[in-house]
């Protein structure tokens, strides 16, 4: 089965719509949303409705820290993120808020784990920055492959049977076979707010038969997404960073 995986949509309608189209064009049969549907971007209602609709049709979604902060105010967010969360809270209906609050913090499926941040203590929202962060997460699960997001930069880690780690920055469009002899942690880039210097939206496809993961970059209408952030009075940096991919 072909999975399409999306992380950190962040209420960016233009980016998420472009990624959904790209995933469908590549034959996606099952959609996985790895959290942070809202926050930062100007279209939270559309983003939540879209994911709710997909989940109703069999997609999987887990909760991110921004989704969580709608219901449970966070004291660790920076000012821009906090301002966006406060604005978003006022835009969402009770049903939409309940949907976000009800999302599981992690999901297991066959030999795969889906989580927003990492597996060792998912509610602490720690980042996977390097091989030691990746190792801690991988030690916490028996499953062969973990998919996560949160850091907005794509990365692919593996752990051999002797617990040796490797790290790799995936190349867009190049399939990588996740060999069965080792365990893997696939960190997705961000759909709605990439921070690796490339403004194009990021998602990945995973084929459960061939075990190949392919990261993709999708160009989208950045100008409109940024203009909507400004038009809604959100912090300007949240708009300015989109064309920079930072």
């Amino acid at each position, binding site marked *: 089965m072909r999975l399409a995986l999306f992380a950190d949509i962040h209420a960016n309608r233009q980016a998420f719509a472009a990624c959904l189209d790209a995933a469908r064009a590549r034959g996606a049969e099952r959609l996985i949303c790895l959290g942070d549907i809202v926050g930062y971007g100007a279209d939270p209602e559309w983003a939540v409705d879209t994911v709710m609709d997909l989940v109703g049709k069999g997609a999987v979604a887990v909760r991110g820290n921004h989704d969580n902060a709608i219901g449970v105010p966070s004291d660790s967010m920076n000012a821009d993120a906090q301002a966006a969360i406060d604005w978003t809270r006022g835009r969402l209906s009770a049903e939409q808020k309940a949907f976000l609050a009800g999302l599981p913090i992690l999901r297991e499926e066959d030999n795969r784990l889906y989580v927003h941040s990492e597996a060792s203590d998912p509610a602490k929202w720690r980042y996977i920055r390097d091989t030691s962060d990746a190792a801690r997460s991988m030690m916490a699960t028996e499953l062969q492959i973990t998919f996560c997001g949160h850091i907005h930069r794509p990365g692919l880690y593996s752990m051999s049977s002797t617990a040796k780690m490797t790290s790799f920055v995936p190349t867009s469009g190049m399939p990588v*076979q996740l060999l069965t002899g080792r365990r893997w942690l696939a960190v997705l880039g961000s759909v709605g707010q990439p921070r690796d210097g490339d403004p194009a939206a990021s998602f990945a496809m995973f084929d459960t038969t061939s075990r190949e993961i392919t990261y993709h970059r999708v160009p989208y209408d950045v100008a409109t997404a940024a203009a909507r952030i400004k038009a809604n009075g959100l912090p300007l940096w949240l708009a300015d960073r989109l064309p920079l991919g930072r």
Partner: protein
Amino acid sequence: MQPGAELDGFTIGERVHRGGMATLWTVTHPGINVPLLMKVPLTSEGEDPAAIVSFEMEQMILPRLSGPHVPACFGTGDFERQAYVVMERIPGQTLYKQIDKLPLPYDEVRVICGKVAAALASLHRQNVIHHDIKPSSVMFRERGEAVLIDFGLSHHQHLPDLLQEEFRLPYGTAPYMAPERLLGVRDDPRSDLFSLGVLLYFFTTGVRPFGESETLRGMRRRLWRDPHPPRELRPDYPLWLQEIVLRCLEIDPVARYPTAAQLAFDLGHPEQVKLTARAQRLKRDPLSTVWRRRFNLGAAPPQPKSDVAVQLASSPIVAVALDLGEETEALNETIRVTAEQVLSTSPSARLACVNVLKLNRLAIDRSHDEQGQNKHVDRLVALQHWARPFRLAEGRLTVHVLEAIDPAAAILEFAAVNLVDHIIIGARQNSMRRALLGSVSAQVAGEAPCTVTVVRPSRLTPATDAGDAAADAAPPPPALF
């Protein structure tokens, strides 16, 4: 695993090899009619963990490779059941078989290593660095192409490098390992050129340039100590060959050939190798130089991470096909401007200026008489004269007069044999001649294995007929194909 057993449709034949890392079995498959080998890693307790990791690398990389310079891959099996890779069985022996006959004649080694360099060029273009070039990694097809085998230590630019963090010590074959590998660098394709330089040196002198030490301490000496120049060992060693060998063995990768294709080019044209001080050297560097290198090891600024594709793209072989007949000055001037633009963006490009001396179908031996010989030399001089304004650094320019009946075919063959990346060629202006002779540039553009730029001068002569008007009214040159 035993003879007669079946695995994923492959029937196991006999075991043909048992090495330290893997065993090789012949296998057959009803749907495949080339000889096949199944490589099975040694994975039991007590085996070298490197066996598993390098097998994983081969399992990832081999199915991605294509072309005549690698064994075709027909299937892989994973560790959950039985790990294996099935590949085409290349008949014959590896170069290792030659080791008792060393040194081999210079020209024989030149031809062998030229083929290996062409194979490396193909591999590097596929974003893979072999990292274990040595005699036992090289075989040959019956048609002559070199085939590289054993990708267990290789690095693929677009795949995770499972060896990068696996071992604290660099893994590979000590006598052939490039110095930068000892510093943990695994992403520079010029490491393979160093290994091929070791092979060149060994096969022409019978001596390994850095000995056979397997200890890290012994291996590290090559970070500061240069090898004995081959001419110190064999006084009759050709200057051009020493130039090539010592350039491959430069400690700093930047001082080596920028690409395997450029190394193959020099091996293919020994008479045009630009000789530098390297060629004349009879002794190793003085101790003061060696000490300076040794005690300033950490002083060199860290090199930015290299990108195989970017490096290859910045070092193309550009061939300019020039017509030297009458009324070609304007066109050749426009070609020079175009070539300058191409070279200015490619700091390590090399330029091959090509002219075809057209042979008469009826009097093929004309070129061998005195008049023909003069004509050949005149053309070489004219090509050098045309290229002079580029002021290209030593070794970046070569000139070639090809003698052929069919100019387009000659240019195409030159491009294929010399791994040319980009052909620049002028379009014939005189419609009468084009009508009579056909368009060389159109045939080259249509059939070339690489990028072709067809150049026309900006001031066009008025069209003489309707058919040509359409062709000549095309947007101003140069037209890119």
